[in-house]
């Protein structure tokens, strides 16, 4: 097979694997105070923001890269990365969608999110992040009418400093772990959402992330604040071009729910997973944490993790307000040489707090999957309950599936229940489906979708369809 043919075949495997030739503005390679100043400067940030970054960087210097995770990876040279990269045409910000670089728009079209059309048809407001900068936010007018703020975080720093100042770093402080602190120092862009008191956001808000330039790390920061009695559903999707080297993605996502507010955060993560031999792919080391600050608040995480060479993240809930609720629904699929170490943390601090964890892991090929989770009920969290269920499905005997839950109960009036099972697809089920005319691959797809149903149900409609397809695609070639 000649190279050309190979390339085409590769493209078939990961259809988002194209890269776009757009001139980039990059910060000088490496990580130091000058680079941080460069980023802060180019974004025209106020003084306090730069101080926030530098404080984080001071802390970062003394931190060590953690090594307790299951998937090991070669040491990352943090000096060999670009910490800022933006399409050149973004330098003078376009005023509206019509002024956007047509090449960028085309990229998004290829990704399946034509901003204009999607805006019109689906009624989903999209904020697209390309490498390091937010490119466009649709549907702004309608949202503004309701007092909802949905904009790139760099804009929020300029226009709503009081909100950003108050909440940025309040859930993930600058003194947090290695990757979170790195993000605090060098984050480039991301989304900012504020839902005012009593407002139910009329549409799904969505962000699309894409890493385009090579040798860049993407460090976006998302901050969502749901004020008293409000509701918001937020979607996040991700892709990246195919490259032989590993790329780092270390985002921070902070959610804050005040009294009676609800935030629903859904992710379909489909970063480039590397090729069949495990070469290349994204390192997805993301810190996601939600704080149920007020009474009766609720935060729900739903994630479908099919991409990335290594996924290492634990979307967490801190249930501080009394009667608050935390939920975590996850499907993680690994194939070929992908590795995942993912799960959640539910930290119960308030009274009558409830949490629920449903995790479905599927590993195929030579992949390795770990569920790692913490349920911690503190001595003050009276009458709290947790229910955890993690099921794993193994396909083939070269892959691994592991479950590592940490369960801490310090309150006699609280109840924790945890269940986990590991098995393979039963021969009977396969036989039954095939007897009715499905080929083995379809049969597996059907069974796996059934296995994941509890989680897929939690996704908003548009995403559920995409996710269902993704589940099928991710497992292609793992049967027989």
């Amino acid at each position, binding site marked *: 097979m000649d190279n050309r043919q190979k390339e085409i075949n590769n493209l078939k495997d990961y259809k988002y694997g194209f890269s776009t030739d757009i001139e980039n503005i990059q910060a000088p390679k490496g990580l130091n105070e000058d680079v941080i100043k460069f980023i802060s400067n180019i974004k025209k940030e106020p003084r306090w923001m730069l101080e926030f970054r530098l404080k984080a960087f001071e802390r970062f210097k003394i931190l060590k890269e953690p090594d307790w995770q299951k998937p090991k990876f070669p040491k990352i040279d943090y000096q060999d990365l670009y910490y800022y990269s933006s399409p050149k045409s973004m330098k003078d910000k376009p005023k509206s969608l019509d002024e956007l670089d047509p090449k960028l728009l085309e990229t998004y079209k290829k990704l399946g999110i034509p901003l204009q059309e999607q805006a019109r048809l689906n009624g989903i407001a999209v904020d697209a992040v390309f490498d390091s900068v937010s490119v466009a936010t649709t549907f702004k007018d309608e949202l503004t009418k309701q007092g909802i703020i949905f904009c790139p975080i760099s804009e929020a720093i300029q226009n709503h400093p009081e909100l950003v100042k108050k909440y940025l770093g309040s859930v993930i402080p600058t003194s947090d772990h290695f990757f979170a602190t790195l993000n605090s120092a060098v984050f480039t862009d991301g989304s900012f959402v504020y839902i005012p008191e009593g407002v139910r956001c009329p549409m799904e808000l969505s962000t699309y992330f894409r890493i385009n330039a090579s040798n860049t790390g993407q460090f976006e920061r998302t901050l969502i604040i749901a004020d008293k009695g409000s509701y918001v559903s937020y979607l996040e999707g991700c892709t990246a071009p195919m490259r032989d080297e590993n790329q780092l993605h270390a985002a921070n996502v902070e959610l804050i729910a005040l009294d009676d507010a609800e935030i629903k955060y859904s992710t379909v993560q489909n970063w480039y997973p590397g090729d069949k031999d495990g070469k290349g792919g994204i390192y997805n080391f993301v810190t996601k944490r939600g704080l149920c600050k007020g009474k009766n608040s609720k935060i729900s995480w739903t994630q479908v993790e099919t991409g990335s060479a290594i996924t290492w993240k634990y979307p967490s809930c801190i249930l501080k307000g009394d009667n608050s609720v935390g939920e975590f629904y996850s499907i993680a699929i690994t194939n070929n040489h992908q590795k995942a170490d993912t799960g959640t943390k539910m930290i119960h601090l308030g009274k009558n707090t409830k949490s629920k964890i449903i995790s479905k892991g599927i590993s195929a090929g030579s992949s390795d999957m770990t569920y790692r989770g913490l349920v911690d009920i503190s001595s003050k969290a009276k009458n709290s309950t947790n229910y955890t269920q993690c099921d794993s499905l193994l396909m083939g*005997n070269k892959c691994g599936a592991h479950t*590592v*839950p940490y*369960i*801490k*109960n*310090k309150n006699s009036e609280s109840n924790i229940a945890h269940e986990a099972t590991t098995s393979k697809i039963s021969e009977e089920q396969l036989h039954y489906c095939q007897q009715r005319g499905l080929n083995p691959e379809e049969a597996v797809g059907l069974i796996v979708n059934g296995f994941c149903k509890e989680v897929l149900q939690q996704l908003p409609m548009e995403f559920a369809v995409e996710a269902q397809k993704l589940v099928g695609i991710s497992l292609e070639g793992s049967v027989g």
Partner: protein
Amino acid sequence: MKEQLHKDFNNSIKNLSLSQKDIEIKKFCLDNFIDKGFPNRKEEDWKFSDLNQIIKNNIGELSFFNDHASTNKVDTSVFVDGLEHNKIVFINGRIEKIDFEYEKKDQIEIIDQSETINEFKNSNSLSDLNNAFTSKCFKILVKKGYQLVKPLIIYHTTNTKIWSKNINLRLNFELDKDSSLRLIDLFNDTSEKNFLNIFYNFELKENSVLKNYKIDKFENKNIKYSFNNIDQDKNSISETFILSSGSNFSKNEINCNLNGVYASAFMNGVFSLNNEKHHEIRSIINHQNKNTKSYQLIKSVLDESSKAVYQGKIFVNSDAQKTDGYQLSKAILLNKESEFNAKPELEIYADDVKCSHGSASGSLNEDSIFYLMSRGLSYQQSRELLINGFLLDVVEKITDPEIKNLIKNMIGIKE
């Protein structure tokens, strides 16, 4: 502590007739221990029980040298009544008596391994401490086809003669083909503030059966660590039961390697704790071969400000198809100060397996108490009845009827 260790080490090897090479090995282990110190919470396996801190808070300075020159008087009042049994008696860490009076003498061999060092391979520093300071070591070999008529009870007795001491024990067992052994470890302490560090190694050959019951029932202020390594060949069965109740701190580790096909391991345990006791069980079941089976059930009843920890791991190698692994831990917290931590872990590399674990913790069921009280029982009676039923479930798993009765009487569980 370093100086103390060196001094005590020199004192303890003085009385032993060891070759230069063996001394070197012991010295190497000592240096390893000095290097690492007692395990602390930074180590993943000791995350929930910081031994270093516990020793510091409860004992303070330990001394490691035990003078085993003079014999201790065996107090026969500690012996179990109503059950004929063979005996091994340890008093303050010294072997005082080995007595297999009910068995055929030629079927059991007791080999003195004190002069040969066989290192205990375990990644934590306590095995180094044990290797460095154990002075006497015996291997008990049950010969091919022999099944012991009566159970063997190992009495671990300590008395007020010792204080702030570290005691290291080491025993090896080999069960040859088709043999069987019932073994009870019974702890009986009148001493206070000592640290017992016990290592057992079991080698189970084809078709052999080991039943090990570890009973730490009587109130005492000692700190105990016990490690059982069990290697199992084809068709062998091991059954371990742990009653974890009496000591101030206790950690039992079971490392079981199911190396042969159709080997199976059963591990059950009861935590019954009060005051400020802190106990842990950590089990690692390694399924290395096809058609192996493991079953674990741990139940805890925790009162006052006690704390129980269960860390259980099921590991399934990629060759170990058709593995069946099961693990369940349940805890009742009676007091708002009590605490239960669990880390039930699965690590699986084979696809045709059935593995599951479950863990639940919470308070006594109010509805059940209401039900019983509405039928005329007092609150206290209902509570006792429910706890009784909760624990009975585990005790019923004991396969030996004689010993089951003995343990039931000890815990005070009624049918």
